[in-house]
């Protein structure tokens, strides 16, 4: 297997002139992922199973057409549609089962399929252009610590048999052996913090719901994932939905809830379809319903589709929306754990928080807590997006640096130009310059740097970015998506757009200094006076842009 394995699509590899990619993160010459002697020669074995992603990102660049073409050309092979391994720059990727493991090819364009088959792709031939070697041994994959995403890209997402064969349902079986309070304590002990953004300890939240007296309790999964640059919730649901179902069932058992809802955004139709099918199959298996796994414990689950409002990712706004109202933020207290959906005690957790629970119960809280750093324990699913050469998802322990993610895993920019800024944690997160690439991914370290980890999304920008335009967009976004309940956010965001416009059009520069002071005042007011983090955090991207990229604010 030679390194003609380099992806053929120019848009998917760093263009000439980019800094050389870190050899440890890409199959570079000399670090070939698989020993040629260990992979079979072409034509030695009849074709068996072939895996092609049905993840919506992979489909957006032709995975369906690739799968159809393979089916048309080689009726004898079984094509399994999986989620994506997360190497999105290599999608559509084709994996072929061999005795040594799965050999990958990518990116494969539909029109490449015939030639690749003729060259021996379906036997796992290593000697053809686009062959990546054994996927599990690719340095990019081997360096990760996949817990939450262990099965994503590997299994058929809606196969209950695959799920069980790959360790599914062990967590729920283990939980049902314990009294609910002990399940809660295991989650506390794991150190798991909410992956939706705020990082509140999941076990502590569950303890509150368990302790609340009520006729009915709910578990709500927040799958609104509105942040730009985040797609891990979507990939998990499209790639391994039973993990989420199992996690929600464990949560329900732990706190005594009878009903669950997944609030899933309408922008993710494939995820809605996959999860709906998975719920039906789980019910048929007795994994949901009145008597789960014969334990006598009953719980059932529904998908609810959002309607295009970013603010419905905020938990109280999500609850209002589930109740059939406008998604207006509620003031807290009361907290949802005590008075949530329809006034009942409610667990509200992000997809990744809930999907991590089965592994914690199956393998032990201590094992999970051993990953990570400081008070940021466990693994996190980071998402590399924007102008990045190797975009996709990377699951590692907390503590990895921003630079390792962007440069080593991400390979720098897709355009081949220097990286200038990255936005971490979605539209309300800070813009950071390359000088901050030593920052470890750690909730406290980020907070100390005036930034946030949020849902783990990292968006890369090259040196052509206009940071004043990005700061303006932060206000524009807030103005468009504000729920409108409080004045600092509703009016402040509009004033913010106007103020940046004044700064940008002030060619004489006569009022620039005064307008920058006004901008800072406005940011302070929004930070201090907003009811929720929509208005309260919009100043974060704006202020970080002014602080680190001040030169862009001079017309």
């Amino acid at each position, binding site marked *: 297997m030679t390194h003609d394995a380099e992806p053929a699509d120019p*848009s998917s590899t760093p263009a000439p002139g980019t800094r050389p990619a870190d050899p440890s993160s890409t199959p570079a010459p000399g670090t070939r992922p698989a020993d040629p002697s260990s992979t079979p020669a072409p034509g030695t074995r009849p074709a068996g199973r072939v895996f092609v992603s049905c993840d*919506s*990102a992979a*489909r*957006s*660049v032709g995975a369906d057409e690739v799968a159809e073409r393979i089916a048309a050309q080689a009726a004898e092979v079984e094509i399994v549609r999986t989620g994506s391994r997360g190497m*999105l*720059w290599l*999608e559509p990727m084709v994996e072929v089962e061999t005795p040594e493991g799965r050999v990958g090819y990518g990116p494969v364009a539909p029109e490449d399929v015939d030639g690749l088959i003729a060259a021996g792709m379906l036997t796992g031939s290593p000697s053809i252009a686009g062959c990546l070697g054994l996927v599990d041994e690719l340095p990019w994959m081997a360096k990760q610590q996949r817990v939450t995403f262990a099965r994503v890209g590997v299994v058929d997402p809606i196969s209950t048999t695959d799920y069980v064969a790959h360790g599914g349902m062990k967590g729920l079986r283990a939980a049902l052996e314990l009294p609910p309070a002990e399940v809660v304590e295991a989650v506390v002990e794991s150190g798991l913090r909410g992956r939706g953004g705020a990082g509140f300890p999941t076990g502590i939240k569950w303890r509150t719901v368990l302790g609340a007296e009520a006729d009915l309790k709910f578990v709500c999964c927040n799958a609104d*994932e*509105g*942040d*730009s*640059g*985040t*797609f891990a*919730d979507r*990939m998990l649901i499209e790639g391994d939905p039973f993990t989420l179902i199992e996690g929600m069932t464990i949560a329900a058992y732990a706190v005594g809830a009878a*009903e669950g809802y997944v609030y899933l955004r*309408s*922008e*993710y*139709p494939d995820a809605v379809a996959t999860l709906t099918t998975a719920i039906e199959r789980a019910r048929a298996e007795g994994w949901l319903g009145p008597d789960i796994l014969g334990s006598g414990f009953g719980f059932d689950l529904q998908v*609810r*589709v*959002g*309607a*295009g*409002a*970013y603010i419905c990712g905020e938990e109280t706004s999500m609850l209002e*929306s*589930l*109740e*059939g*109202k*406008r*998604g207006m933020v509620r003031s807290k207290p009361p907290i949802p754990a005590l008075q949530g*959906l*329809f006034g009942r005690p409610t667990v509200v957790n992000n997809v990744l928080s809930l999907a991590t629970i089965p592994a914690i119960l199956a393998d032990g809280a201590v094992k999970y807590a051993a990953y990570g750093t400081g008070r940021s324990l466990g693994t996190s699913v980071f*998402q590399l*997006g*924007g*102008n*990045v050469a190797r*975009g*996709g998802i990377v699951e590692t322990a907390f503590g990895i640096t921003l630079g390792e993610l962007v440069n080593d895993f991400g390979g720098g920019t*897709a355009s081949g130009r220097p990286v200038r800024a990255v*936005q971490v944690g979605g*539209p309300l997160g800070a813009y950071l310059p390359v000088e901050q690439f030593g920052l470890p991914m750690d909730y406290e370290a980020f907070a100390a740097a005036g930034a946030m980890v949020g849902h783990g*999304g990292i*968006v*890369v*920008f*090259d040196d052509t*970015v206009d940071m004043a335009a*990005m700061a303006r*967009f932060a206000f524009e*976004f807030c103005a*468009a*998506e504000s729920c409108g309940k409080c004045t600092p956010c509703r009016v402040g965001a509009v004033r913010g757009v106007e103020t940046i416009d004044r700064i940008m059009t002030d060619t004489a520069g006569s009022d620039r200094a005064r307008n920058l002071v006004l901008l800072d005042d406005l940011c302070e007011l929004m930070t201090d006076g907003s009811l929720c983090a929509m208005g309260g955090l919009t100043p974060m991207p704006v202020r970080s842009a002014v602080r680190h990229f001040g030169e862009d604010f001079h017309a």
Partner: protein
Amino acid sequence: MTSEVVAAAPVPVPGRAQRVRELALARQDLRGPLIPILHAVQEELGYVAPADVAVLADVLNLSVAEVHGVVTFYKDFRRTPAGRTTVTICQAEACRSVGAVALAAHAQATTGCGFGETTADNRLTLEQTYCFGNCALGPAVQVGDKLHGRVTPTRLDALLGDAR
């Protein structure tokens, strides 16, 4: 955000009201049924007409103002029919970093539509969104029900040409 809508030949109003009522009655026992009902109405009838609001308020025993407030809060719910195909361009940060703003300008120049508008021949409606979760393969554009990644202006022209 249904794209292939049947609105070219609107259902006669009495028939429409009847159908809206059926869609609502079939879901009224859900907890918090209004949003699933609105999705169902829009999916089948293409948009949520002002006249539908009164029907829904009646079935759910809500005030017309309450239902109106919900319909207008959420961007997904259209109050008028869309064109035959809806083209939605992501305008959020990750797509911006790879040229989504220029792509949108190109689409607007080609179609003669701003965001939220429909071509005069009713063929296309142009919309923007903030994020399809395809942020590693941007710019992302949805044409009808199909999501496309890494869309260049040339590629967009081809997609718009295909949309009939």
